[in-house]
């Protein structure tokens, strides 16, 4: 009876209560920050004494915030393209290739996901000090690519495994060149995998804090680094405004994913 919702009796309400409280626990901080970004109190008093847009005005008036947001977007966009391209090529090798140590290689490609990021950050920081890549876009892109690539490889190998290779072979037998068959048959069939690889890669780079703190220089920082540096000084409501903008971007991406999933299903 425990797995039948309608026959749980009184327990149903306990479970619903815990789930409701947990949902509130998860959503309220986000709602709270969004509300406070429109509040007029410098000290983030809740409920706010009045409503204002001045924190947003301050965000958009400060070239450093905008620059940081621009840098974040630029780096995340490059990481997304490289991560999907390298991930796609590697996935073809991993799924359709036959060579010794394939499974081991596959596991190796996922290790950046399990290694504590701080270890990678410190190690790359030391390496980049030697070759002069700290504080450069290249350095940021490489660091973020290392952590984004596993997500890309995971999404694309999953999609490729669900794709029947014999369809591609059939296209070749019917006269398509191997490349043509890949581009016109295989790629469209795994487009959902490519899409989630792109979204995950973008978000990984866009949200990444720890590597970015180490790679950043006074002249080049991403939005999370700017938020981090500001947070260490005070809790100014400008961060609430910046955070709310980030939340809006997140919700937009989530809706995009949901819409595309629906489109794929129908």
């Amino acid at each position: 009876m425990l797995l039948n919702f309608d026959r749980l009796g009184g327990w149903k309400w306990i479970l619903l209560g815990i789930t409701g409280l947990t949902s509130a626990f998860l959503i309220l901080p986000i709602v709270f920050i969004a509300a406070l970004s429109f509040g007029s109190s410098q000290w983030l008093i809740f409920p706010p004494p009045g409503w204002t847009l001045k924190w947003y005005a301050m965000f958009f008036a400060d070239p450093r915030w905008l620059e940081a947001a621009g840098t974040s977007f630029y780096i995340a966009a490059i990481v997304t393209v490289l991560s999907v391209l390298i991930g796609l090529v590697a996935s073809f090798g991993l799924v359709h290739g036959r060579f010794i140590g394939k499974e081991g290689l596959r596991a190796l490609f996922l290790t950046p996901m399990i290694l504590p990021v701080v270890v990678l950050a410190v190690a790359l920081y030391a390496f980049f000090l030697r070759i002069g890549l700290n504080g450069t876009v290249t350095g940021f892109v490489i660091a973020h690519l290392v952590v984004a690539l596993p997500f890309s490889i995971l999404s694309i190998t999953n999609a490729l495994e669900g794709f029947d290779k014999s369809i591609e072979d059939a296209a070749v037998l019917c006269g398509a060149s191997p490349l043509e068959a890949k581009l016109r048959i295989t790629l469209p069939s795994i487009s959902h995998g490519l899409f989630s690889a792109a979204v995950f890669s973008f978000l990984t780079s866009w949200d990444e804090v720890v590597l970015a703190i180490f790679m950043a220089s006074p002249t080049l920082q991403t939005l999370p680094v700017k938020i981090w540096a500001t947070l260490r000084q005070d809790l100014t409501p400008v961060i609430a405004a910046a955070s709310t903008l980030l939340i809006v971007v997140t919700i937009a991406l989530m809706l995009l994913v949901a819409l595309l999933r629906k489109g794929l299903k129908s």
Partner: protein
Amino acid sequence: MVLLTERDSPPPAARLRLVRPMNFALTVPALLLLVVFFILPVLSLLLRSVMEPEPGLGNYAALLGSTTYLKIFLNTFVVSALVTVVTLAIGFPVAWALAIMPSRLSSIVFAILLLSMWTNLLTRTYAWMVLLQRTGVINKTLMGLGLISEPLPLVNNLTGVTIGMTYIMLPFIILPLYGVIRKIDPAILQAAALCGATRWQALTRVLIPLAAPGMVSGALMVFVMSLGYFVTPALLGGTANMMLAELIAQFVQSLVNWGMGGAAALVLLVVTLTLYAIQLRLFGTARMEGR
């Protein structure tokens, strides 16, 4: 369509070989990236722990022989264990409810879980810094209700870190546990009820044992992720309860002591990889994500 006889064309296998030259070579770009910018830098960092300032195990002796550092190791384990226990205690009933509630309701909860997971880590941590501060809404509410007369110290201490980390880790335990409970056949619990088990017996002797693999695997995952966390402990914790990831960053950034930094990194790495190996051995799969 033109039908080909066997004599007209080479057998399919021979032609298909042309289509399958892709092999190891395709993984080379990814492999190069990984070796040059991941494996070698990490190995070189670990090497520095036994080479700097002079060759030997001096850094490890200093790290493991000092009560200051041992306290940090202990604190890292305590925080991670606390977060794991709390997320499991909250996560199990939520995953259970999600697995059986009408989909209209569960889709709302899933949307909240995903939104929370996808929201920028710093945003979420900032929210808790604001909520938990002395003049924050939680202290104000408690004082308004007359439950406390002085603001509680909720931030820059163990309470703050535990709340903040639990908040971040909850989805990582709810989602896999949901998958596990979803796969349990309701007929088994029906059978338990028919055989006279009370609800409580059915819970403790049937449902929880069946969900146990998922609970252990999820708990291990949360524990390992917590061990290496940097941002949330740094912002919500105090100097008195520093965690290992902060110590590594501090050795490198403020003290420029690469030897000690490398040694602390190796400790974190060894613990992480050992637990990961246990996870693989026990469950064959690993779903982990570090930040």
